[in-house]
């Protein structure tokens, strides 16, 4: 284990360049460039605000609905785009895998890192919205970096499993977008956890994203305490998924070059 971590560290420059390549290519020959990174969650938020905020009068814990949904759309977009990118990354880099040796984990990890840029840009928009709604920014905002680490760890764990499976079963490529769509509704993005009947709360807390997004949100609002139980479950699940993912990936990667 330490040996493979050491090796990953050895190849950190490759990791960085793969991510850099992904970013470069994603926005090359686009007119809007990196603006696309924020356009997607921003437009979705606009639609949600109108549909769920205005029309359906969805409760939002007393926060402006736009801010409420965007604060969740931002991590969600990061999660969903990086997951689908990472799950397909190994197959997408088949040529590299067939011809050169390097720790295979760098590929999905770099795909996730490349999506982090979009997240950073989105964060700027979030600050603009916070200022616009005069939302008081609490000290709890300092939790964001930690939560980002946790979200990245969770995404990495799932990506390692899906990415490795995708090498063998290309079904994953077809299943992932669908699964992401379902997960969107099982995560408190357009609705607050408080809206869920008490007896179902435990079920939704089993979605590790619930804890992360709820906590991210609560940091924006000074009066909302952090739900430690949700946090704890989410953190435990994240670590478990990451451990299983890394283990499975290490085992599967030996056959990548022959299978891909």
């Amino acid at each position, binding site marked *: 284990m330490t040996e493979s971590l050491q090796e990953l560290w050895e*190849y950190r*420059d*490759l990791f*960085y*360049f*793969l991510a850099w*390549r992904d970013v*470069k*290519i994603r926005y*090359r*020959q686009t007119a809007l460039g990196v603006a696309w990174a924020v356009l997607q969650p921003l437009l979705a938020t606009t639609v949600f605000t109108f549909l769920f905020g205005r029309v359906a009068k969805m409760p939002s814990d007393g926060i402006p609905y736009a801010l409420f949904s965007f604060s969740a759309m931002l991590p969600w977009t990061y999660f969903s785009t990086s997951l689908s990118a990472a799950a397909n990354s190994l197959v997408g880099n088949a*040529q*590299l*895998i*067939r*011809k*050169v*040796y*390097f720790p295979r984990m760098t590929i999905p990890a770099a795909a996730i890192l490349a999506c982090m840029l979009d997240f950073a840009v989105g964060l700027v928009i979030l600050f603009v919205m916070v200022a616009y709604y005069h939302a008081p920014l609490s000290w709890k905002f300092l939790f964001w970096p930690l939560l980002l680490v946790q979200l990245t760890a969770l995404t990495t764990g799932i990506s390692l499993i899906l990415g490795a499976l995708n090498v*063998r*079963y290309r*079904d994953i490529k077809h299943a992932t977008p669908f699964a992401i769509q379902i997960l969107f509704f099982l995560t408190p993005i357009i609705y607050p956890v408080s809206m869920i009947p008490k007896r179902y709360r435990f079920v939704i807390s089993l979605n590790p994203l619930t804890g992360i997004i709820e906590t991210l949100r609560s940091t924006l609002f000074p009066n909302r305490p952090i739900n430690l139980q949700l946090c704890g479950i989410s953190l435990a699940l994240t670590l478990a998924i990451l451990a299983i993912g890394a283990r499975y990936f290490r085992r599967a990667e*030996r*056959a990548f*070059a*022959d299978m891909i």
Partner: protein
Amino acid sequence: MLREAVMRFAKNPFHRRTPSIPFWALRDVSFCGNAGEIIGIVGRNGAGKSTLLKILSKITYATTGRVSVHGRVASLLEVGTGFHEELTGRENIYLNGTVLGMKKREVEQKLEQIVEFSGVQKFIDTPLKRYSSGMALRLGFAVAAHLEADVLIIDEVLAVGDAEFQRKCLKRMEDLHKSGRTVLFVSHNVMAIEYLCPRTIWIDRGRVRRDGDSKDVIREYLAHFASAQKTGSDLKERQDREGTGEMRFTGIEFLEQDGQVKPVTRSGEALTVRLHYRASQAMRDAQFGISWSTEFGSPIASISTADAGYEIPVIPAGNGHIDITFDFLNLMPGRYWVSIWTTGPHHHNTVKNCWDVLERCAAIDLEWADFYRSGHGMGRQHGIIFLPCKWSASMNGGQAPRECASLDSETGNG
């Protein structure tokens, strides 16, 4: 795959999976290379060479067995791995360099050298998609040439590129070897292997067939290769012949000078062609002829007993043969056709009044040979024949003339 598994289960729910026959791409392959050694690996397509290199470079894992390598390994199974056409030349150097295991700092230090070696300075900030394939290739090799690994594993890199590029690659490999690197080099170009590597391993159907001195291994390898093709032909049944038929060729053989069957012929070697015939009656003043043409039919040379002033007053009825020996086949490697004919003492020979004419009745493949002693590829693009020669440049300083000066003129850019 999942679908197949489901289908298999549906068809055959109570039985275990039908056993598949294992295929061993490699079996019992053991060898040891010493530090600083340069080893050539030859073998036909599908012999397992690539699998061997992939196992050695950790891309894939051996089912059983062990590989231990001391030092940093860099494998070069392809030129320009990881190149992306949307990125510029410079960006691709960084990407390709780190893919091959270099650190960013290393790439930075060598950037200038790499760019110079590639010869695409002008276009270094142009996206790769605007490059010609040759330029991209040169860029890829330039990066690879600056790898600082202890062990280099190289696959078939010389198979691509023009002669100039191949020469540069070969030179670079020689330099790497001289600086103490261990090199494993797979190529179909046995001439390059013979030139570069004192030791060669021949992989055949997944096993080490021979491991030893390059000259011996390659000779045997080529012989094996050629024996799969014809070393002669039976001509008795040939219908595509002309002539009156008083005498018929019955066979043609390619032989060593001592009369043994010659399994492989390399450019620059001697060759004896034996023509077997059957005469229906005693033939007076017979003439024989043989002509060579290229694979595409261009005539190269035509020689007959009459032209050579060799007289055959009488040939008795029955079977016999006549030999013609070429002391030095200065033909480029490749396939050649041989046409033969025999005739009586006519003054105006036409195909019709010859006894027997067989056009392109046998093919012979001339294999590579390092006839200019330079180790780099000479082929059909250089013409049909080669001319044995010696270069000598006279220096102003009164230095002794150097042989092969033209090939050494660019030693500066090693």
